[in-house]
Structures are given as structure tokens and as C-alpha cells.
């Protein structure tokens, strides 16, 4: 789960990391009032779960409260990577002498939380890693001991040769590790970590991703979720316990299991169509989930055909069939439906569908081909 910059900054502050003050506004007038309170030049920053905010015009300087009002008004009208901007963070502009990058990620190879630090901050760290890998220092943290002071100093000296800055930076690194592990994060990042002309070390930005698997046991983190900045269909799906990701195509997909769902999308593409979504109804298939899945998919006007691909293991195909019958009886579909199901209780499922005047296929490739044909009006290439 992504959280906003202002929320991540709040967590970082609680763990002692020095961060300039800032307040959140949802209207241009609020932004103006905050700018007046701080006085001087402020930065107005879009709060949105997307990278590249600056390039998209979501980060602007404002010299006066009136200018803050005007730029905040513009930013609040933006959509960045298709997400609406509903809040801006207004913060006093800092004088910057140097910019560094510090971050923690979960590293799959070492199976540990790994620090990455670089004196080349302020820009995309992936770019730094690709072009100038020697400018990045990594350190895997032993989860039993955390980040020791000497380890933090080694990392900090890589950023700042002067101990006057290395020492406070090392402290920030330890505080960042604390914020990361206490919050159940899978990523915590400060980009840029800056030095000011007077020699202070400050965090000017903050990014945090919370591990989705932590949310159930972490009500404090769950409370940070901002549904207004997510796609409404994805919010609806999450509340129905479905894993759903909206895409741009026209073949709606309902599948059980993540791997099979991805393979189904790929096969749609293979046969010349485009998947409208990723949707995993999960293992235990009560008919309610199927009803929710159809509601969410049919809400997308791009969808021209719907494909069910169910391989019954734990999932009982008769449950899925019942769900399809219920959902289509209550809300008749306006687009064609192709059903593929095989596995547990397949005979019962086929009987249920037959009684309701529907039919199903048992072969995945045949079903995908048919769905693509129906969605494209036969224009899908026969691969």
C-alpha cells in the first residue's frame, strides 16, 4: 500500500528524522493560508501515488501567498498518471547545498532489508544504478540486530566526507530503519536528503510503501489508506476481497489464482485481444465473489466481452457457476460471456449452467480465442 508524502513525513518525524514543517491543503485557499503562516517562498507539492510528480507539473515554487493559491489551484486540477490530485503539501522552501539519496528496500536476493545510499540524490535512483553504479553503496541489515551505529557511519561517510554531516546523517539512517521496521514497510526512502548552506542535514521528501500483508494486523497503517486517490473499481474490488487491477483492453477476465490470471491475460494478447483487467477471485469461491467480480468488470465501458477461466482445485466450479447464474439473472449482461471451467465438480457446474441456458467450454485456448473474437468483432488476429 502506498502512502502519501505527508503521511510518510509524519512517521519519519515521529522517529526523530529532521524534516522542515509542512501542512496539507485540499483547496487553493487553504494553500494560501498555509503559505501566509510560513511566510517567504514555499513549495506546493501534489500528494498522489505516482512517481514523476515534478515532470508532470505537480511540484511548484511560490514566492507569495497569492502565488501559492494560484499554483495550488492548478495542481489540484491535475491528474497524474490518471490519478486525481486531491491534496497538496505546502512547505517552506529550503536552501540546498547538496542532495543525496537514502532508501531501504526488501532485497529478494539477500532476503533482507537493504540500505541503498548515494551522494547523487534528487534524481531517479534506478537511473543512477544503471549509469553510475559506483555512486551507490548497499548494505544488507541483519534483522536480529538492526542497523548498528558503526554501519550507519560507514554509509554516512559514503555520502559526506565531513564528520559534522556524517554523524547526523548516520543518526537519520538509524531512525529511518526504525521507521521502516516499526511500520511494516517494504520501502522507505528519502530523496533528497539535503545539506543546507549552514551545514544542517534534512529530509526534504519522504516515500513509504507499507507491505499489504501487514495491513490486517496494523490498524494504524490501515488508517492511512486514501481511497480518493485510487481507482474506484480497485477500491470496490478490495472491499469484496478480490485482487483487481484495471487495464486498458476490452476483454474482461475473471480467473482463480494469480499465475493463471496472468497467463490468461497473456493468452488474450497472444490471440490478438487486449485484457481489460487482472482479476483473481482467489481460492475459496463463494458465489458472492463472482457477483462482485461481474459488477466491477461490467462497470468498465471498454469491456466488450467477459471471459471466465476457472481451474477448480480448492475452488469449486459449481460455486462459480452458481455465482455466474445469480449475477446474470439479477443484472443481465450487455456484453457476451465466455465461460471456461474445469476441475472440481465440473459436471455439476455444467449442469447448473445448462439449466440457466448457458454453456461452458473446458479448453483454455478455445475459450480465450472465442472471447477475443467476440470483443473485437472477429478482427483479432488468428495467431
Amino acid at each position, binding site marked *: 500500500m502506498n502512502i502519501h508524502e505527508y503521511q510518510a513525513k509524519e512517521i519519519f518525524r515521529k522517529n526523530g528524522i529532521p524534516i522542515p514543517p509542512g501542512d496539507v491543503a485540499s483547496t487553493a485557499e487553504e494553500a494560501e493560508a498555509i503559505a501566509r503562516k510560513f511566510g517567504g517562498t514555499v513549495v506546493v507539492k501534489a500528494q498522489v501515488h505516482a512517481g514523476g510528480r515534478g515532470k508532470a507539473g505537480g511540484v511548484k515554487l511560490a514566492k507569495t501567498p497569492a502565488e501559492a493559491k494560484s499554483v495550488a489551484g492548478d495542481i489540484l486540477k491535475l491528474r497524474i498518471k490518471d490519478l486525481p490530485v486531491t491534496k497538496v503539501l505546502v512547505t517552506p522552501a529550503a536552501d540546498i547545498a547538496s542532495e543525496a539519496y537514502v532508501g531501504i528496500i526488501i532485497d*529478494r536476493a539477500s532476503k533482507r532489508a537493504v540500505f541503498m545510499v548515494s551522494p547523487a540524490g534528487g534524481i531517479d535512483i534506478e537511473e543512477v544504478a544503471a549509469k553510475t553504479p559506483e555512486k551507490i553503496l548497499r548494505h544488507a541489515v541483519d534483522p536480529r540486530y538492526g542497523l548498528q551505529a558503526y554501519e550507519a557511519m560507514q554509509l554516512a561517510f559514503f555520502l559526506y566526507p565531513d564528520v559534522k554531516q556524517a554523524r547526523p546523517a548516520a543518526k537519520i539512517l538509524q531512525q529511518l530503519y526504525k521507521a521502516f521496521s516499526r511500520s511494516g514497510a517494504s520501502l522507505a526512502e528519502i530523496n533528497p536528503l539535503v545539506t543546507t548552506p549552514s551545514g544542517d542535514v534534512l529530509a526534504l521528501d519522504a516515500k513509504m510503501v507499507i507491505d499489504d500483508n501487514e495491513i490486517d494486523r496494523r490498524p494504524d497503517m490501515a488508517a492511512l489508506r486514501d481511497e480518493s486517490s485510487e481507482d474506484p473499481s480497485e477500491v470496490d474490488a478490495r472491499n469484496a476481497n478480490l485482487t483487481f487491477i484495471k487495464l486498458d483492453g476490452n476483454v474482461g477476465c475473471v480467473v482463480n*489464482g*494469480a499465475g493463471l490470471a496472468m497467463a490468461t491475460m*497473456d493468452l488474450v494478447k497472444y490471440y490478438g485481444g*487486449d485484457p481489460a483487467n487482472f482479476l483473481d477471485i482467489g481460492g475459496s469461491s463463494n458465489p458472492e465473489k463472482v457477483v462482485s467480480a461481474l459488477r466491477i468488470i461490467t462497470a468498465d465501458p471498454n469491456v466488450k466481452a467477459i471471459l471466465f477461466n476457472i481451474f477448480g482445485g480448492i475452488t469449486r466450479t459449481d460455486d462459480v457457476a452458481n455465482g455466474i447464474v445469480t449475477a446474470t439473472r439479477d443484472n443481465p449482461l450487455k456484453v457476451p460471456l465466455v465461460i471456461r471451467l474445469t476441475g472440481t465438480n465440473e459436471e455439476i457446474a455444467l449442469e447448473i449452467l445448462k439449466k440457466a441456458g448457458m454453456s461452458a467450454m473446458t479448453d483454455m485456448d478455445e475459450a480465450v480465442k472465442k472471447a477475443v473474437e467476440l470483443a473485437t468483432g472477429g478482427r483479432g488476429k488468428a495467431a
Partner: protein
Amino acid sequence: MSIFIDKKTRVLVQGITGRDGSFHAKQMIEYGTQVVGGVTPGKGGQKFEGKVPIFNTVAEAVKATQADATVIYVPPPFAADAMMEAADAGIPFIVCITEGVPVLDMTRVYPFVTEKGSRLLGPNCPGLISPGKSKIGIIPGRICTPGPIGLVSRSGTLTYEVVYQMTRAKLGQTTCVGIGGDPINGTNFIDCLAAFEKDPDTKAVVMIGEIGGTDEQEAARFVSQKMSKPVVGFIAGQTAPPGRRMGHAGAIISGSTGTAAEKMQAFEENGIAVAKRPIDVVELLKHATR
């Protein structure tokens, strides 16, 4: 032969009285797996289905049953503890089915289990099956049949799809292993490939990967450097957008790494035949074992 488990494997079920644990314990017993005990704190002394003894702790269960494998069906907040308890009790093979284990828990569990000398499979995996011999986990027994192909996969239902196609084409399996879809897991592709390479009955191997991480790329290098047996590969997620978690916690393209294209290229460069569709695995296997 088979890898990791056979007819003699003595299996405990942690969480045997829960909804999933009890259902799959019955399925395993029906399949012929030697389920020698169950663990549910507070239910020690009772019997599951009138015959399988239940214990309060894994240590007690191991002492009484000499179990050499365990399968975990406990809910996510307790799964890390269950894995560590099993390793501490000296169980050499631990299979964790539970989906949703926090990744920071796994950064602690992995070194703990490894230092105790246990092999962990999972979490968030369907387990494994040696057709006709034993199964641990949730892979449906009836879609598998004994034969000369080894299979290793990060997925559940996609594995069933491929195994089912193989079985229909009379390409039976020595062992099918689901290593799970989490970013930090125990047994990986290379562990399974190495075991299949050693197993005299396995003639060819199917490897099913997906987007996220670099395990498939490393496995591909292992295949070209250390394996004599043919390997057929499939990667799911060619149409997955970057930065989004595709169901599995580990199925995410980070920046530009972990894409399906990158993994398929690594397969091709290392002599692994790449199936474009799941069904193509069958033809490629026939060709490889001809």
C-alpha cells in the same frame, strides 16, 4: 524416485483443526500421505478423524511420531512462529501453505530456519506432490500421474493447468513442486532443479516462472552451467503493467527489472525451450524427451 518426499515421509499438519488444515489433511490421507499427527495448541490429546493424534506443540508431536515433514495451514499472523517452531523441533522439511505472511517476518524466519538446518518450502505455495506416492499441501491429486517429468513453479492454479495438460498428453511427473509467489521464500528454483538433476527417474524438467525478481534468470544460468537434462520454461505476466502487485506479493515489476521479456530472454540464452502458451509446454516436452 521423486524429490523431497516419498511414500515413507511422515507428515505433521500444523493447524489441523482449522478450516483449510482439516480439509486438506483429509485429502492428503486419502491420497496416501502418511499423516502421523497434527498440532493445535489447546487440543493436545484429541484425535483428528478419530485416528490422527493431535498435540499442543510441534516438539511433543515430533517426539511421539518421529515426523520428518510438516505442513502449515495457520493464519498469516501466526505463520512465522509456526515455521520457527517446526525448525526448532528439528523437522527437516517444512511446507508453509499460508498466504499473506508479512515480508519482514520472513526476513527473520529465513535465517532462523536455515541455521537450524531445515528446508522450507513456501510460504504462499501449493506444496508438492510425488504422484502415486505422497502429497503435502493442496495440489489436487487427480490431475497428476506418475512419470518422468519434474515440475517446479511459482504459481498454484497455473501449475494445475500445465500439469493437467501434461497428464492428458500422458507426460507423467516424478514430483511437482510449488515454490510460492512471495518475494522471500525458502526453497527456490535452483534447489529444485539441482534435486531433479540428481533424481535418476526425472528425464526432463518444466519450470514455470512469473514476473518479479531475478530468480528465473539465475535459475537459467544454473541450467546452462550445471544441468544435463532438458528444461522447458514458461513465464506468466507478459501483459502485466510495471509497479503493480499482480496478486502474488512477489509478482511485481520494479522499475525495469523482473519483466517477463527479460526472463524469457534469459531462458532462451541458456538453452531453455520457452513455451509461448501454457499448452505449448506439452509439445516442447515431447520434443525434449524424444
